[in-house]
C-alpha cells in the first residue's frame, strides 16, 4: 500500500528554489571567468522571487506546503516542507546573500576580457552553493537529505574562509574544516541510529514514532553535539573567530549572518520537530547553561580585541549563545513556549541582518583606512559617517535597545523567562546586553573622538548603502506586526500528542 502523495499546491516552488542555485553552480563552473559573476548575480532576483512566493503560499494557506519528490510519499521517498519559519528564513537568506553578492562585486569582479581568477571563481560559486544548501536546510523534511545539505554548506563555507590565500587564513580554514567534519560524522551517526531504530528518516513520521529510549537519546546527543560544533556554541567556538575574521568581508557577513544559523536551524528541527514527544527539560537546561557561558565568554573576549573584525567575530560567539536560550524557553507545550519560540526566531533574524551589516561595514572601513585597529580609529567617524552609522545601528540591535529586532528578541526572552518562572535566564539576557553595549562603545568612542585621519580611498556610496540597508532591516524587525509572529507559528508542533 502506497501512502497518498502529500504534495500541496505551491510545493513545486520548493524544488525550483533548490535547483535554481544548483543550476547556477553548474553553469558558473563550466562557463568560468566573468560569466560566474554574471550567473550568480543574474539569478539573485529569481531566487528572491521564489523565496517570496513560498512565503506568500505558506502565509495564505495557513499551513506548511509540501512536495514529495518523484511522487513518492515518505518513508520511501523524500519530502520537502516549508512552514512559517522556513518561509521567513528563506526570504532573510535571499536578502542577505543578494546584498553580499552586490557588495562583493568591487572585490571579485573579473574585468572584461580578463583571465579567470582563482578567488573570483571560488567566491561566486560558493556563494550560490551556500544559497542552495541553506534552502535545503530550511525546507528539507528528511534527516539524510539534511545531512547532504550540511555537507554542501561545509564544502561551500570552508573555501570562503581561505579565499585570500594567506597562511593564517589557511590555518583558520583547516581548523574550521576539522570541527565541521567532526560535526558531520557525529550527525550522520545519529541519523543511522534513527534509521536503525525506526526505519524512516522523515521528520513527521519519526516524530510520531520516537519514544524515550536509550537509542533515541544517544542519537539525539550525537546529532546535537555535531550541530553544536558546526554552530560554534561554547565550548566548541574555538574555530569561529579566526575563520570569520580572516574571510573577506562579504564572505564574513554570510558566514556569521547565515551559515552558523543553518546548523542551528537543524538543531531546532531536531528538538522541536523530531523529538517534541521527549520530555527534554534536562537537555534544554544543559543547552541553556552553555548559552549562558557563550554569552559571557564571547562578550568578554569581544571587549578585549584590538581588531574590529575579531571583535565582531567574538560578538557572534556571544550572540549564538542567545540563540540557544530558545531551548529552555520554548521546550514543551506551555503557554509561554510560543513566546520563547518567537524570541528565538527573532534573534536569528535580528542577528543575521545586524551582523551582516557590521561585517560589511568593517570591510569598507578596513579598505578605506588600510587597517582595522580600533585604537587608531580617531577621527574616522567624521571621515566615514555612513559606515559608522551602520556600525552604530547594528550595535544598537546587538545591545537590544529599542527599536530593533534585537530588542524584540530580548524582550520576548525576558517575558518567556518570567512567565515560565525560569528567572535564571534573565541574567544572561541582561548581562549580555550590558556587555554588548561595552564592546559597541569601544568601537564608537575612539572613532567619534577628534583626530586627523588619512583615507586611502573613500568607499563607494553604493556599498555603504547596502550595509546600511541591512542594518535598517535589523531595526525594522522591531516593528514586526502580529501577522509576522502568526506566520512563525505555522507548522510548529505545539506539544507532545498534538503533532500535525
Amino acid at each position: 500500500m502506497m501512502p497518498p502523495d502529500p504534495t500541496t499546491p505551491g510545493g513545486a516552488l520548493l524544488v525550483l528554489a533548490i535547483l535554481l542555485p544548483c543550476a547556477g553552480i553548474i553553469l558558473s563552473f563550466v562557463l568560468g571567468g566573468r560569466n560566474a559573476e554574471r550567473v550568480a548575480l543574474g539569478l539573485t532576483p529569481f531566487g528572491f522571487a521564489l523565496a517570496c512566493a513560498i512565503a506568500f503560499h505558506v502565509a495564505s494557506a495557513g499551513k506548511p506546503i509540501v512536495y514529495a519528490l518523484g511522487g513518492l510519499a515518505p518513508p520511501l521517498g523524500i519530502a520537502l516542507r516549508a512552514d512559517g519559519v522556513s518561509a521567513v528564513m528563506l526570504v532573510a537568506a535571499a536578502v542577505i546573500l543578494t546584498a553580499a553578492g552586490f557588495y562583493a562585486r568591487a572585490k571579485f569582479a573579473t574585468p572584461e576580457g580578463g583571465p579567470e581568477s582563482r578567488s573570483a571563481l571560488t567566491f561566486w560559486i560558493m556563494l550560490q552553493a551556500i544559497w542552495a544548501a541553506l534552502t535545503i536546510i530550511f525546507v528539507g523534511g528528511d534527516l539524510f537529505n539534511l545531512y547532504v545539505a550540511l555537507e554542501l554548506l561545509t564544502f561551500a563555507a570552508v573555501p570562503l574562509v581561505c579565499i585570500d590565500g594567506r597562511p593564517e587564513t589557511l590555518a583558520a580554514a583547516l581548523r574550521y574544516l576539522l570541527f565541521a567534519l567532526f560535526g558531520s560524522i557525529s550527525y550522520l551517526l545519529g541519523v543511522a541510529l534513527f534509521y536503525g531504530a525506526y526505519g524512516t528518516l522523515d521528520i513527521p513520521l519519526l516524530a510520531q514514532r520516537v519514544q524515550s529510549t536509550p537509542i533515541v537519546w544517544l542519537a539525539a546527543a550525537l546529532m546535537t553535539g555535531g550541530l553544536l560544533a558546526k554552530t560554534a556554541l561554547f565550548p566548541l567556538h574555538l574555530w569561529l573567530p579566526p575563520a570569520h575574521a580572516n574571510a573577506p568581508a562579504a564572505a564574513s557577513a554570510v558566514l556569521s549572518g547565515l551559515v552558523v544559523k543553518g546548523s542551528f536551524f537543524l538543531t531546532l528541527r531536531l528538538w522541536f520537530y523530531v523529538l517534541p514527544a521527549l520530555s527534554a527539560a534536562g537537555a534544554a537546561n544543559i543547552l541553556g547553561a552553555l548559552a549562558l557561558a557563550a554569552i559571557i565568554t564571547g562578550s568578554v573576549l569581544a571587549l578585549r580585541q584590538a581588531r574590529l573584525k575579531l571583535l565582531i567575530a567574538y560578538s557572534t560567539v556571544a550572540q549564538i549563545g542567545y540563540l540557544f536560550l530558545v531551548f529552555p524557553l520554548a521546550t514543551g507545550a506551555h503557554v509561554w513556549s510560543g513566546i520563547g519560540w518567537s524570541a528565538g526566531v527573532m534573534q536569528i533574524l535580528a542577528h543575521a541582518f545586524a551582523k551582516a551589516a557590521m561585517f560589511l561595514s568593517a570591510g569598507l572601513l578596513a579598505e578605506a583606512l588600510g587597517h582595522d585597529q580600533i585604537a587608531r580609529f580617531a577621527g574616522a567617524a567624521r571621515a566615514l559617517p555612513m559606515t559608522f552609522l551602520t556600525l552604530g545601528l547594528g550595535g544598537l540591535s546587538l545591545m537590544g535597545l529599542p527599536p530593533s529586532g534585537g530588542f524584540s528578541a530580548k524582550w520576548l526572552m525576558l517575558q518567556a523567562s518570567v512567565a515560565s518562572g525560569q528567572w535564571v535566564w534573565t541574567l544572561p539576557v541582561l548581562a549580555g546586553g550590558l556587555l554588548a553595549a561595552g564592546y559597541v562603545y569601544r568601537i564608537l568612542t575612539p572613532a567619534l573622538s577628534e583626530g586627523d585621519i588619512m583615507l586611502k580611498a573613500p568607499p563607494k556610496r553604493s556599498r555603504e548603502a547596502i550595509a546600511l540597508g541591512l542594518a535598517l532591516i535589523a531595526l525594522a524587525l522591531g516593528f514586526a506586526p502580529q501577522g509576522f509572529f502568526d506566520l512563525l507559528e505555522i507548522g510548529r508542533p505545539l506539544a507532545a500528542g498534538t503533532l500535525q
Partner: protein
Amino acid sequence: MSVLPFLDVALALLVVGLAVWTIAARDLFASVVGYVAYGLLLALVWVRLYAPDVALTEAAVGSGVTGVLLITAGKRLGAARAGEAGPSPGLALKLFAGALALLVAGALVAIILILPDPAPSLAPQAAAAADGPGAGLGNPITAVLISYRSFDTMLEKVVLILAVLGVWSVGADKAWGAAPAPLGRRNPYGATVFLAQMLAPVGAVIGVHIFWVGADAPGGAFQGGALLAAMWMIAMMARITEPPRVDARWLRLALVAGPAVFLIAGLAGPLMAGSFFAFPHAFAKPIILFIEAFMLLSIAVALPALVAGPPNGRSE
C-alpha cells in the same frame, strides 16, 4: 558446525587490531599502509554482511582512492615539512580525545546490542512499489540511489564539484588555470609503467562493466567510476599521462556532466511522469542508465582531480 563464525570473529579482531595500529603507527607511510589494509578488510566485512555494493565502494573509495590521496599528501608534506610543523598536541588533549572516542564507541556498542531485531526496513515497501517509478531495476541499491533518493544522489554530485573547486582554490593565484603537479617521478623503465600498461586497460573495462551490470547486479556508477578513476590515477603515477589543466573546458564539462544531466532529467520529470525526479514507467531503465553513464564520467574525473590537488604551474 560451520567454520564461518570463527573466521568472522578473526576478521573482526583483525580489523580492530589494524585500526589501533593505524592510529599508533609513528611513521606516516606505515600508518597509511595500515589504513589501506584496514579498508580492504572492512570490504570483506561488508561482503560477510551480504552488502556487496557497500563492499565494492569501500574497496574502491575507502581503501583505493583515499589510500592514494593520503600517500600523495604525505609525500608532499614530507617535501614541505622542514621546520614548518607546529607543536604536537599535549598529553591532556590526547587523553581527552581518546576518552571521548572511547565514550562514543562504548555507547554505540551498548546501543547496537539493543537495536530492534529484526531491524525495521523499507525493503518490503520498496518491493510493493515496484510498479512505481523505480521499476525495472533488479538491484535495489541502484533503485534507492537513482530513484527513491535520486535527489540526494544529485546533490552529492554537486558536492563533488564543490570539493574539487575547494581543493583547486588553495593553489596560488598566479598558477590558476595551470595543471596540478605530476603524481610521481618520471622513470620510463620503472615497474609502475609496466603495471599501468598492463592493468589500466583491463581495469577500465571492468569499471565500465561494473557500471553496466549495476542496474541488476551489485555495482553501479559510483563503484564503476571509482575503478575508472583508479586506473587513470595509475596512468598518472606512471607518468603515461599528466593531470589536466584546471581551466580545460573538457575537464569542467566532464565534472559537471553527471549533476547537470541528472538535474535536467529531474526538471523534466513533471513533463514525463507528473513529478520532479519521477521517471516514466516504460522508460525508467534507459533513462536511469543514461543518467548513470554521465555520473560515471563525473566520478571518474572528480576523484583523480581531488588526488592531483591544486594547480601548480611548475612541471616537476
